[in-house]
């Protein structure tokens, strides 16, 4: 069993970080397909107020343990070369990226299906909470659909 990896990063995930992640896979020449999901903070309007950002908190040790289980399960069921997950903590402003899921495989079906499943598992089962912060500083706890 691999050891538990950290997935949390303070603040938004930058496009440069994503580019760097992609570039680091050029040497893994067994890869034929990458699938990437990015969650971006949306400027939802609620009662006339616009979301300015989301502040994320997590039950970190439980989230990392759960993510570890998700990873182990995915690798037993898909022919994946690698998988990387990064989730923001703290404030992420509207238009910035708070979730980055990246799967790579020899063939596209494994990469795409695994990425999709991991995103759903994260949304459904990681103990992470987002508090929407509106332009007028009102707040509302976000709910995933």
């Amino acid at each position, binding site marked *: 069993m691999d050891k538990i990896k950290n997935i949390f990063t303070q603040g938004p995930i930058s496009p440069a970080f994503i580019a760097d992640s992609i570039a680091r896979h050029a040497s893994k020449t067994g890869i034929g397909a990458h699938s990437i999901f990015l969650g971006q903070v949306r400027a939802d309007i609620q009662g006339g107020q616009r979301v300015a950002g989301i502040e*994320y*908190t997590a039950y970190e040790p*439980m989230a990392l343990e759960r993510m570890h289980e998700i990873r182990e399960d995915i690798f037993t069921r898909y022919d994946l070369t690698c998988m990387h997950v990064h*989730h923001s903590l703290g404030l992420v402003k509207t238009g910035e990226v*708070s979730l980055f899921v990246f799967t790579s495989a020899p063939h596209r079906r494994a990469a795409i299906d695994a990425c999709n499943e991991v995103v759903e598992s994260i*949304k459904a089962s990681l103990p992470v909470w*987002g508090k929407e912060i509106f332009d007028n500083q009102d707040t509302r706890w976000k709910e*995933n659909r």
Partner: protein
Amino acid sequence: MTVLTFGRIVDICGAGVLDVAPQPDTDSLEAHLHGRYPELKGLTYVLAVDQKTITGNTPLHPSSVVAVLPPFSGG
């Protein structure tokens, strides 16, 4: 014993870490918390004992860490 709260539960309980008199099981812990924080009764949450979510009444030890987890909204 230690009870951790997250998300909107923190707002209701006023702190992310609560110090609670030891309870024999999660049912009695919930009754205790509902007495102390009546607003909790109307909320949706699950309990985790030592980082595992539970579905029914679960025995507790003095060293158990219980977390009160409202619906997740990561991503």
